[in-house]
């Protein structure tokens, strides 16, 4: 289960940064880029809290 969450979170990070490279290479439109970034944000914030370690209080 943890591995699945990590995989989805990584897809979220990829969906955040990869579209910008596609915009740069004119493969997608800026509007598509914005939508993909929102999807990436949701994927990351929905999954990351379940596997990222708690910050040490010190």
């Amino acid at each position, binding site marked *: 289960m943890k591995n699945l969450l990590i995989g989805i979170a990584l897809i*979220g*990070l990829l969906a*955040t*940064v990869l*579209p*910008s*490279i596609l*915009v*740069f290479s*004119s493969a997608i439109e*800026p509007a598509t*880029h*914005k*939508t993909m*970034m*929102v999807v*990436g*944000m949701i994927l*990351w*914030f929905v999954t*990351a*809290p379940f596997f*990222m370690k*708690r*910050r*040490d*209080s*010190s």
Partner: protein
Amino acid sequence: MANEFERESVPENKLKGLRSFIGMYAGEHAAGTEFMIGPLFVTHGVTVFDVLVGLFLGNLMAVFSWRYLCAPIAVRIRQTMYYQLERICGIRLVALYNLANGLMFCFLAGAMVSVSATAVGIPFNMKMPGLNDWLPNSVGWIVAVAAVGLVISIVAAKGYDAVARFANIAAPWMVLVFLACGIAALPQLGIHSLADFWPVANEIVWTGVPIEGQTQYTFWHVFCFAWFCNLAMHVGMSDLSIFRYARKASYGYASAAGMYVGHYMAWISAALLYALQLKTDPSNTTVAPGPMAVSIAGLAGAVCVIVAGWTTANPTIYRAGLAFQILFRKWSRFRVTLLAGSLATIGAVFPALVMKLLDFVALYGLILMPMGTVILLDFWVLPKLNLKSFFAEAAGISVNWAAGAAWILTLCICLALFLLAGVEKFFLFIPGWFIAALLYIAGSMIIQRRAFREAGR
């Protein structure tokens, strides 16, 4: 509550690995204010070379300052900066330092609140403050700042553990949003390949011509700014509290993660966003991170600006509260943190705080730097001169005037250099460091020898 070793050395079994420091620095230095600093360089007319090379070398100096000034003392003594200062300077002088530190934290947090407010105001079509505005330009701005400040202050006052955890989770995403914004802005600026970058950036982004009303900055301004941007933390030694958990002094190099992600890539990305705004509408010179990020990254950009401002303002207000608590000992942590949050919010209402962020950062570092010099000399130099380290503790005094004079006189001399000799504020910390060093050594010689003479009678 976890033992944070506030008045003792960190034991061997509590030391942390290199990865903790890399993660912490990378996250902490991708703050809301990065959205401001990159564009402000553009407004001051720097060139591509100034930015790319000046930032690279200035950040390198900052990393070396952490590695060779701060970390070696931290791993030898393993105590917080505040406790070391108390032992050197005495409890009353530390209280004064805490007041200065707390106020600086408040205004820094205020700048972060302002950054978040620029994104919060977008759905309400709020008029953004202008580059040369000192006073709030609309009721909407005051309401947005007050709302953001209130929420952040209350959350900080209730203890910031949950926000710290959220900040930890948000950090990798935020860093990638910064990167994505920069890359996606390139084609709209007319950069379609690596070969396009230098000529187009020279012509459109970092043109070498300041915006009307702004002073001209050079390579040296960029270099020195990158170096002293965190002056209070490395030369000023406040990160002794961080590196006391490091196994080796070489962990000081972990600060490079923060410098080259937050203070290189993020500043450059933010500058590209601002250049795009100017290209679209040359009359729109305001530096408003919210609209800039939304124009490239849409909703994710707006969320990033809010989160970047919020997650960094929150611990800053909390730290300001801790600093003030030494002065208001009978106040609860909740009350004193609310006071710090209120000061931050009042500061944030005035756009000058964020539009003049580069100047504020220069002042912030300069005010706190002399005490770092005192710690450095007290540890390395005083024993070689047969003088006693941690003199306030040894003599049982509440004010060590050698340290007090080094601090106050250095600031007075720097002020005189600025006002009378016309030394640029960005460069003051270099003579300031040597002035503080000489004053502390001379003062320690006078005070300690007199104390020993009196003790011998």
